[in-house]
């Protein structure tokens, strides 16, 4: 991005754009980025983060995190909080894949135990966790059950022997967001979703077997609080969302919102910023449907966890409990939630949109699970399949500055077409094997599109948010096996 005089540096990793930059801005924009990340950020981020600042009822700032890149309406890596009475809700501020998110599971296995069996393990998980075009899940629920499933999320799973007793306590919001109403979800969304529980999807979704990177085992005390106790411990990370259910919810409501805006006299700078008053019937209907989709995603990742536990048990001939395959945590990175925050000298409920951004609640917050409350919420930030991921911890500074929000991943820098021109899938697969990563993909084209060079440097993103004090690094996780749709 060429130098832009409107972007004012406020710290070594934070930048602001004044409301005077664009007519209609209600608040300033704030971007968290190193100089290097800012220089490489596409100019669409500036356009979009300042457009979001124009939305009715937005409070404090329109944010772009260090991994921000152009999206539909909101930038991906965008965060915006709205007054619940006067503000709007926007499907573009959530994303099509409602509660696309990350789940991290630990094991007590050492790298030396897993490495000789990695092919067997990945091949088995690839068979147990369907991925790719039009896949069906192995868990068949009736459409009549969807109301309960999408209301209670992982709690429903625990009540039906589809989750361990303490699994819900290690998922954001206790495994379900309150406020779901299946009557606000279309027949098409329900039909799409019912057959997709336990499926990975495709695109940038993945299931990765990882090992703690001993060179970046950074905060051993906090790592131990999260159940990471040795420097070659094997983990499993799952990145996926609400599948066709969530996509259909967004599709259905985007249609409604466009026509609804005329009735409320709302004009937006970008059609993809379609929004309605959160307090309106239509706004509340979308919220209730979105919550159903968010809870669907929690359940989807839970069913996948069950399949992963089964796979590990079969390969290592011990049950998953004996392998200590407990959840570390599960985070949303596409969602809008009502949360209580203190800002500008007051404490109030706000509707926080995180689109490609992760909650990062600090120590002492009542919504952080009791086992972690002393240190703060686990934050899982996924990198590309070649570079690995990070586990971090939330902070009070995030609460003070960003409505408890941080980055979510690396962010793409290259289109899918351009990535396929640079590398062939089979060649990439061989290269990754040479680097100790066994990857199995539903399609070679899909693999090429997800090459590491198509993404920003995750370490730079994570370092930025750490220097900003918004989320602090705990441990880096290196991939050793990967399943892609």
């Amino acid at each position, binding site marked *: 991005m060429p130098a832009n005089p409107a972007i004012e540096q406020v710290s070594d990793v934070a930048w602001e754009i004044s409301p005077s930059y664009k007519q209609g801005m209600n608040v300033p924009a704030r971007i968290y980025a190193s100089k290097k990340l800012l220089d490489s950020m596409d100019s669409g981020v500036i356009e979009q983060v300042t457009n979001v600042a124009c939305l009715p009822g937005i409070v404090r700032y329109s944010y772009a995190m260090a991994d921000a*890149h*152009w999206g*539909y309406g909101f930038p*991906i890596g965008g965060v915006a909080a709205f007054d619940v009475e006067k503000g709007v809700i926007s499907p573009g501020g959530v994303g*099509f*894949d409602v509660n696309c998110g990350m789940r991290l599971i630990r094991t007590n296995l050492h790298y030396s135990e897993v490495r000789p069996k990695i092919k067997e393990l990945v091949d088995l998980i690839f068979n147990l966790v369907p991925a*790719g*075009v*039009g896949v*069906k899940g192995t868990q068949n629920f009736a459409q009549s059950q969807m109301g309960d499933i999408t209301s209670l999320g992982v709690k429903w799973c625990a009540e039906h022997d589809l989750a361990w007793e303490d699994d819900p306590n290690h998922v954001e919001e206790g495994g379900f967001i309150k406020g779901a109403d299946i009557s606000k979800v279309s027949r*098409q969304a329900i*039909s*799409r979703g019912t*057959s*997709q529980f336990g499926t990975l*999807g*495709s*695109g*940038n979704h993945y299931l990765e077997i990882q090992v703690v990177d001993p060179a970046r085992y950074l905060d051993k005390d906090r790592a131990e609080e999260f159940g990471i106790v040795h420097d070659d411990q094997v983990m499993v990370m799952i990145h996926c969302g609400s*599948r*066709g259910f969530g*996509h*259909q919810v*967004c*599709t259905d409501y*985007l*249609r409604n919102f*466009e026509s609804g805006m005329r009735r409320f006299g709302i004009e937006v700078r970008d*059609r*993809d910023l*379609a929004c309605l008053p959160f307090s309106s019937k239509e706004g509340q209907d979308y919220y209730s449907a979105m919550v159903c989709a968010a809870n669907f995603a929690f359940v989807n990742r839970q069913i996948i966890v069950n399949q992963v536990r089964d796979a590990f048990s079969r390969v290592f001939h011990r049950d998953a409990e004996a392998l200590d395959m407990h959840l570390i945590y599960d985070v949303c990175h596409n969602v809008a939630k009502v949360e209580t925050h203190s800002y500008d000298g007051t404490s109030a409920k706000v509707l926080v949109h995180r689109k490609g951004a992760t909650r990062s609640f600090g120590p002492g917050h009542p919504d952080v699970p009791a086992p972690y409350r002393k240190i703060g919420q686990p934050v899982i930030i996924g990198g590309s399949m070649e570079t690995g991921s990070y586990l971090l911890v939330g902070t009070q500074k995030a609460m003070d500055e960003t409505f408890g929000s941080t980055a979510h991943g690396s962010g*793409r*820098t*290259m*289109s*899918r*077409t*351009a990535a396929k021109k640079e590398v062939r899938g089979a060649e990439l697969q061989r290269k990754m094997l040479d680097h100790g990563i066994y990857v199995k993909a*539903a*399609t070679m*084209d*899909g693999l090429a*599109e997800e090459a590491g060079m198509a993404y920003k440097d995750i370490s730079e993103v994570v370092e930025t948010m750490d220097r900003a004090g918004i989320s602090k690094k705990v441990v880096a996780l290196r991939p050793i096996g990967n399943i892609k*749709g």
Partner: protein
Amino acid sequence: MTYRFLPDVALADIAFEATSDTVDGLFETCGLAITDIMVDPSTLRTTNERELSLQSESLDRLLYDFMTELIVMKDVDSLLFGEFRVRVSKAGTSLDAVARGEQIDRERHRLRNDVKAVTMHLFGVKHEGKTWRTTVVLDI
């Protein structure tokens, strides 16, 4: 009736532009483009037939709903379609269509990207002289 992909429009997703001399052909072309994103069409047979009837408030919305319906049938019925015959009403607010294809066969079909939704980004139907045109960005 042609479509071409637009690699620089959306980094994380897939975009195409479709053109045709007729509005019916525009719909058919969009159907073919979506199929091409999901599967190598040369591996797809046309042994199943589905009839569709849709109504919408405008031509734009009708095309949006038509493409969305193809995505729904992919997920619900595992169907991919290689041939389309679409008849759009004069008012442009309803259509009848026949789509021919088959159920997904992971052994035989060379599958590609999973299309999840039609976005509103850049979307609209234009009639410029004799040419019908649309740009579609699909969430992958």
